[in-house]
């Protein structure tokens, strides 16, 4: 379902970008990176609005704790839909689906949510590696393999 998955660090620098799909002139690795990059804008916008709404309604702090990490559809283009997810440590997970492919167009929100949750779990596993320095790019081959299969399994 997904054509691209990205893990973006606290400082908005990419920690991991993985994509599948055949490279065509319009749909290639680089173009997906642009998509992910611009998605950060929408993502930050979403975060700031949730934050302000939370501070405004300081009474129900319980909602802050239960804040859904899944941010839903960030924005869409003619060909792609971009979904976002933010961990409590401000690691951003971005998932890009292609609306032109038959499976991508028919995707449900719940599926994306599960996929991103699984990606979060995979990410947590990957950075548990004691040799991984937080803030560095994720180079783990295992993580790469798992993420690729995550993208494919849902196709």
């Amino acid at each position, binding site marked *: 379902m997904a054509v691209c998955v990205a893990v973006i660090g606290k*400082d*908005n*620098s*990419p920690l991991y*970008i993985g994509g599948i799909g055949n490279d065509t002139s319009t749909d290639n*690795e*680089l173009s997906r*990176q*642009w998509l992910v*990059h*611009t998605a*950060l*804008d*929408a993502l930050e*916008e979403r975060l700031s609005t949730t934050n302000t709404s939370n501070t405004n309604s300081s009474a129900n702090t319980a909602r802050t704790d239960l804040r859904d990490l899944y941010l839903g559809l960030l*924005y*869409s*283009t*003619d060909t792609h839909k971009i979904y976002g997810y933010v961990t409590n440590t401000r690691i951003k997970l971005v998932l890009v689906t292609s*609306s*032109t492919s*038959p499976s991508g*167009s*028919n995707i449900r929100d719940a599926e994306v949510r599960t996929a991103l949750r699984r990606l979060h779990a995979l990410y947590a596993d990957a950075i548990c590696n004691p040799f991984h*320095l*937080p*803030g560095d790019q994720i180079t783990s081959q295992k993580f790469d393999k798992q993420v690729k299969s995550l993208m494919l399994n849902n196709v």
Partner: protein
Amino acid sequence: MLGLYEEALVQYDELDALFSQFVLNSNVAESPKWLETFRQPITCWQAVRLTSLVPQNLRELIIKKKASLLDFRSYLFQRQSAMLLLTFKPWEIASRCLTTVHNTLVELSLLNAHAVEGAAACWAHLACAETLRACERISSTNSALEACTNMNAPLLHNAKDKLHELGKLCGLLPCSSEPTSEQLHLVVMLSAGMGDSEPNNQQSSTDRLKEALCSKKSFQQYYLELAELAMGTYKHIGRLRFARTIGRDLAAFYSELGETSKAVVFLMDALRSYEEQGWKDLAAQTRLELIAAAKKMNDVDRYAKLSARIASTAELEILVRNFYFEEMLKTIKEDLAEKQESVLTELSDCFKLVSAELLPSERDVYITDNKVQCRLVIDSHMPKDVLCTRAAISVEMFQDKQTEKRTPVKNYKTDLTVNVGTQANSPRKSVDTTESESNTLITSIRLDDLKPKNPLLNPMNITSKLHYKEDKTLQKATVECQNPKLPLRRTDSTKYRKPSATVRNNYETCFECKTFTIHPGLNTVVVEYIAQKCGTFKLGQVSLLIEGKLEFLSNALIAGKMGYEVETQAISVYLNKVEPKKDLVSGLEHDMELVVTSGSSRIEDNATILLKTSTGLNIRFAKDQCPMSREIAIPIQAIEPFQTTKIPLRLFASLQPKREKSIELHTVWLTCPWWETITEVPLHFSPPMIASWRLLTSNTRKFIHVTLKSSVAHFIQFILTEPKLECDGNNTVSDLNPKNSGDMIVASDSTTASLMWELLKDPLVKAGPMKATFTVQYRPVKEDISRTFSCPFDIQDYTTLFVIRTKLEPGKGSDFCRASQVCCLQLNVQRVNETEHTSLMYEVLADQTMWAVLGRTAGVITMETSTAEGQCVSLDVMPLGAGYLPLPAVRLSKYIARDTSARDTSAHPRLEPFSPGQVYHAGKAKQVHVLAPAPKEHLDITV
């Protein structure tokens, strides 16, 4: 009709969702028959009309089952919009518009409905444009406008994209050649499909699009207008990344237009933001676009710099990198060859400075006119070997030193005596330490170590805690992470800020290394510099000049405070002992040497050092047997830097006839041609031996006892011969010494020699003061030459005047002295010679543990005449213990009565002691046998 717009909207939404789902399912499952209607070719792509009116024509088409997909979608969207308009939610329209457009485009492709190429784009563009207009028209309040603006930006973006797509199809882009006939035909087709605009005085978006498609110029105008508006709106709502994406599109458009400089502005802006946030792939891509622009603009400087940077970008494919690497070399050779100045760029673009280390010099310090070397480790990101014409590090003066470094202590570090040597050493050490404290320069640096530590790597402060209830039972156990509020520190923003214009430092004085090859990966370069000036220097900018024209500069080392100190090592002249452990002894010849070290400079030929000595110190060359003198000129041969010559000398300090042990201080003055001042070398001489004498008396006979001992610190032995005591006047002495005293030895391991003479004189004649001189010939055991040691002394008041005799007699009625019985101490003072001191005081100084003196212990007696019997005094004493007790001692002093003539009432009678030889105490060593207190038959007095 009922006015329940919200409910109606829900119904329309239901319909929308249902339809979408059917279309999506049609792709995977069998599609229902009715869906076929929407597969018919599309002939009309009229703009949606966002009014509250029901679009009757579209409704009829749907009823007649003749509606195309676009017709149906238009109808649905218009109805939804109408509901929203009636509920005054224009921003909802805007947000729905994009979804509708995207869905419709997907559905079009899924249903395979035939349409003219570009029809969909036309429809999408018009939908966006109409929505924008509707929002503009309706949103009267500020808040509504605000809400709309947020939604408008993506709409504008989409409209712009669609327009670009149309322009591409119709050959209206600035790069394309004149539109072909097919393209012209397409424009006509598309315009026809859009239909006529509604009868309105305003220019509709349909008209605008038609106009734009007519000519290149109007297209360009409309496109730029949309793009600028989209970018501005994005910036307004804070979506900078979107704005930059449009900026890139604009850049592409401008560069096609030929206005490359405008394009570069957009690209640079985008590049900076990508670099800042670590999107390396995007930055690399942007660079590729920038270099294309540079090529177009024929900006060779920028082209060369970017080629180098791209060649070093690991994210790019090796073929691309190699291509730009060759481009870089080509540009340098062809375009930059004529330029005088080299092109400056940032070192970190292509190389990484890993470490820098100042190599220690062979000597401890860096010395002028000698090499100072620095080892640089550079990581090259270039894909191939590259020729570095020059690697250099600029040098900055850190501390200016006015005077040449020449500490006076170092000049005559003359370890002459052990004491002086340590004194001379200690201030030098302290000087060194203060120097090292003041200069906190480091000599080696790893640039990775300079980076701030990742705060995420700090260990967390986790503690476990047990919480108890009031009744002491465990309530809960927790693991707590204390989160101490870390002081918020400003992160170094220079990391992100690209050093704007790299400024080249002054490389007049610099470390240099010429012409070497830098391989990809780690390279070690040793740059060196001949130090010319003294002082402390700091390393500045690093420069790598590639192929003679492209210069990479880095200021990374400046923050590191790396530096070194250059000194001049002056010529040093030391006067050293050959055997440094031994003291200098006056009265002996010593081997010394003059050590001349040339330091960092060369000593020319014909240099002479003039040595002058203080009185009593003589010097000569060790080799030739010339006489000793107090002045000597020493010629020094020419020597190379850091060489040493030694001139052996012999030194002799004449012995001063002195009695007390004292160290003699001599001085040698060195006059060297290369110093302006005369250097003073203090020399400390200790005497070979010390003589001490004592006058011994036996009644009226007098003896002189001379003791010789050596106080030299190191072990030395002297053989003594011909001891002599000479007296002045008509006094004579008789030698009581054994005649084979030639073997006598005095050594510094406290072996002493004693000699004795008797003073021959008439005992009854009072003699005046007498001067005597003791002389002895001495020679060290290993030497042959004997020298004379002499010691003068004065003897005064040595004639015996009084003789004291003491006698203990048992008390009355007993025959023996017994303990605890009163005895009688008979004291007899006899005058044996003429004297003016007739009034005498005696004091019995009894040991209080042995004797108790009853009554007076002291008294005054007058010795007017010289009688044989003398004065007798008897005292009562009591021995306190039994045994052989020494008799109480008696002291005789001159008693000078109070001067009655003087008015001074404070004048008291006073005592003056006699000289040691004037009173002879005959009973000094006498002992008396005292019996135990038990009554005994007989009394015994032992004398």
